[in-house]
Structure formats: C-alpha cells, structure tokens
C-alpha cells in the first residue's frame, strides 16, 4: 500500500523526497483514479485557492474526504492544513475534516515569512513558515503537537495532522522518524 501525495500544485516533490528518505512507497494524486491503492495521505504546501480550483471539475476532494473519514493517516502542511480545516478565515473551506479555525496568510506577506524554532512533539528544530496560516482555535477533540513561542502551530485529531509550517523543506531525523511511524502504524497516532 502507498502514501498518496496530492499533486495538483505545490511542494509535492519535496514530500516525495521525505518519503524516499524513509523508504515509503507513494503515488501522486491528480485524479480520483489515483486513489485506489492509497492507505495514507499527504496534502502539500502551495496555494490552497489554486488547488481547490484545479480539482473542482472532477470531484477529487469528495473522494479524498471519504478516504480521510475512513481513518487513514493524513498529514497536511501549510496549504494542506487550510484544505483540512473546518473553518478558514480569508479563504474557502474545502475538505473540512479537522476541527480547527485557520486564518490564511495570518503571519503576514513574504517579507514577514520566517524560519522559527518549533517544539514538535518535544523536539526543537528550525522550520520554515512561508506566508503561513495561523491556527486560531480548535475543538476539544484536537490536541496540539507543535508550538512556537507558546503559540500552537501543529495539531492532531484522530488520524489527521495539520501543520502551519514546512517540515518537508527540512527533513530532519525527528520529523522523518515521526512521519514513518505515523504513515505506517497510523492506528497508534493518538499515542504519539
């Protein structure tokens, strides 16, 4: 079985590189027909408005939503988090499977984009925030897993993880080890 990487637009080859580092088979997802052998999912960074537009005529997102709701491990980074979020400020709700409120470009424009020291599951690493979305609030079913200066920048809810930043541009060992266990043993994601 393979990890499906949404490949409409954005940093999907960067995520593919992460998967190659951990020897995880993958398939690029551009159409519903690409989803048949997928048992985990990655939604990359990029422009959420563009991704939503590209898939609108082929029902790709409704098929992806069903897959996520079936419980497969799903990771969204930056634009991927926006696609997952139930409520989006200054943007459109699309998949709406993660009980968070997210604001697009809330850290500012590109000149305010930054590398920041993130505490991800107890480990500190510099990660890239690029015109990043902000997690404004989340419901009780959602647990924070990443913070920067006490602000939540990553969450998990059951099988779904959303991050404001781009671990796929860093590929540090702690992230790759976590990714490997998340994608391969998704049933235990909560205990992470």
């Amino acid at each position, binding site marked *: 079985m393979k990890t499906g990487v949404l*490949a*409409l*637009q*954005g*940093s*999907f*080859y*960067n995520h593919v590189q992460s998967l190659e580092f951990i020897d995880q088979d993958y398939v690029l997802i*551009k159409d519903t027909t690409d989803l048949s052998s997928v048992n985990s999912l990655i939604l990359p*960074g*990029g*422009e959420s*408005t*563009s991704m939503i*537009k*590209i898939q609108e005529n082929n029902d790709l997102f409704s098929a992806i939503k069903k897959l996520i709701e079936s419980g497969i491990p799903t990771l969204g980074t*930056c*634009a991927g988090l926006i696609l997952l979020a139930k409520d989006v400020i*200054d*943007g459109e709700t699309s998949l709406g499977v993660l009980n968070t409120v997210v604001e*697009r*470009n809330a850290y500012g*424009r*590109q*000149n*305010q*984009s*930054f*590398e*920041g*020291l993130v505490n991800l599951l107890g480990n500190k690493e*510099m990660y*890239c925030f*690029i*015109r990043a979305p902000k997690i404004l609030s989340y419901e009780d079913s959602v647990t924070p897993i990443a913070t*920067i*200066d006490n602000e939540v920048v990553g969450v998990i809810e059951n099988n779904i993880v959303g991050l404001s930043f*781009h671990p796929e*541009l860093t590929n540090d060992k702690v992230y790759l080890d976590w990714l490997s266990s998340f994608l391969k043993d998704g049933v235990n994601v909560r205990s992470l």
Partner: protein
Amino acid sequence: MKIESTFKIKKGLAEMLKGGVIMDVVNAEQAVIAEKSGAVAVMALERIPADIRAEGGVARMSSVETIQEVIDSVSIPVMAKARIGHFVEAQMLESLGIDFIDESEVLTPADDKNHIYKHDIKTPFVNGATDIGEACRRIGEGAAMIRTKGEAGTGNVIEAVKHMRSMTDGINKIKTSDQNELMSLAKEIRAPFDVVKEIHELGKLPVVNFAAGGIATPADAALMMQLGCDGVFVGSGIFKSGDPKERAEAIVIATTNYNDPEKLIEVSKNLGEPMVGINIDDLDEAEKLAKRGW
C-alpha cells in the same frame, strides 16, 4: 526564535509555487480573474509585454498605484518587475510588501553591466536566464528562483524551449563532469564556482526553474512542463486572447495534467482566439528582449 527572509525562506516560496501558473495582470479586475482561475501568483504590471513591445519607449517599474491596487485585490502572492540593475526600484518594491521581485529584461535595463545584488533585499527575486551560466550568475547574486527568458510578448514558445533545452544540457554537463573539471567548466560558462559545485552535488539547479516568454496555449504550458520546468509564467497570452478567463483556467489545468493528452484536449476546446503571435525571425536583433542581461 524567528529569523525572517533567510535564503531558505526565499527559495521556499518558489517551492510552493511549483506546478502552478503565474499570470501577468495590469489591474485589480484582471488580478481577480487570475486568482479565480487558479493562478498561484500574479505579476502586477503597467503594461503587458505585448503592449510594451508594440508601444516602445522606456519600460519602467509599474506605478505604485497599480501595484497597490493589485496587492489589495487578491490573497495569492503578488510579484512585480524591477529594471535590470535598478536596485532602488527593488528597494521600493520591497517596501511596498511585494512577495517576489522579477528583475526583468522585459523592462528597459538600468545598468549595462550589473544586475542587482539580491541578498541585501528581504524580498525574494526571480531572474530570467537563457543558459546555465547566466542562471548560475543570477543565483550567485542571490536569485531565489530562475525562469527561462523566452521572448516575451510574442506568443511564440520557440525561445523558451531553446532556453530550457540549453539549461538542461548545461545541468547535465555539470552533473556528469568529474569534480576535477568543475573549476575549468565554471570559467568556461562564466559561473561562480560555488554554484557550479552545488549543482554538481545536487544534480539539479539549487532553486526552482519556471518557463516564461511566449507561452500562449495549454499545449505550450504542458510542453514546457514536459521539458522539465517547475511551473509557468503566462504574460500576454491570457489577457491578449479572446476569452481570458477560459484560457487562464485551461492553462492552469494543463500545467497540472501536462502528461495527460486527453485532459489537454478537454481543456483546449472552445477557448476562443489565442493571441496573435510574432515570428522570432521577423524581429530585429534590437527588438529581442532575451538579449538584455549580462
């Protein structure tokens, strides 16, 4: 701890634009059409390249009002052009909060020898290149993204194809060279050694490489993607065509599905008239924009 505008952050925005289409727009109305059609970014311009070509005169950075109008109208990244070597235009674009600066041969150059030293500006830069040596020089100066020059405003893709093929040949040459040969190769292509060494180690350019200059149809966009580009700029091709919205959407879908002829056929139906093109052979040497830049 937060550090703004590192080179990794500059390159990172270009990584996020991959697989996407960046569209030239001259006002808020066009910018909104571009965003709704699925553009990943817009380029705010006073005049599109086809009009600059037709009207002549000195082409400069767009007016502050035009740029501000476009910034205010969309939520996707906004790019704008500065003249080659005009670091004050770049400083102004940085202060305006532009997301990416294109140091562009489409505008009239301001310096006949030097490009902008781009590391000093917070905003990332994209630069045009016709071959690997030129790409390496621009990366050495701090460009966070490269694009082919093509021949802007012609609706003719031949020059973009030529530049992309030349780039790929150059990368392959560096990749397959023995490391003892790298310095001599760097000298030959007039490229900074460090950048050549990095390409040798990575096996590819260290920054994203888009196609630009003459892309007018979904098939043109797919052609450039199959040749190995990371995404496309479409300048005059959209808003000089019969039905800009339809064409913009079609080029976006074609850029994602560049390997799928059936999808390309589907989006190429009922597009209306493409922009009228120009044969490159009909241009005087002095009219060729790709010759600008050093």
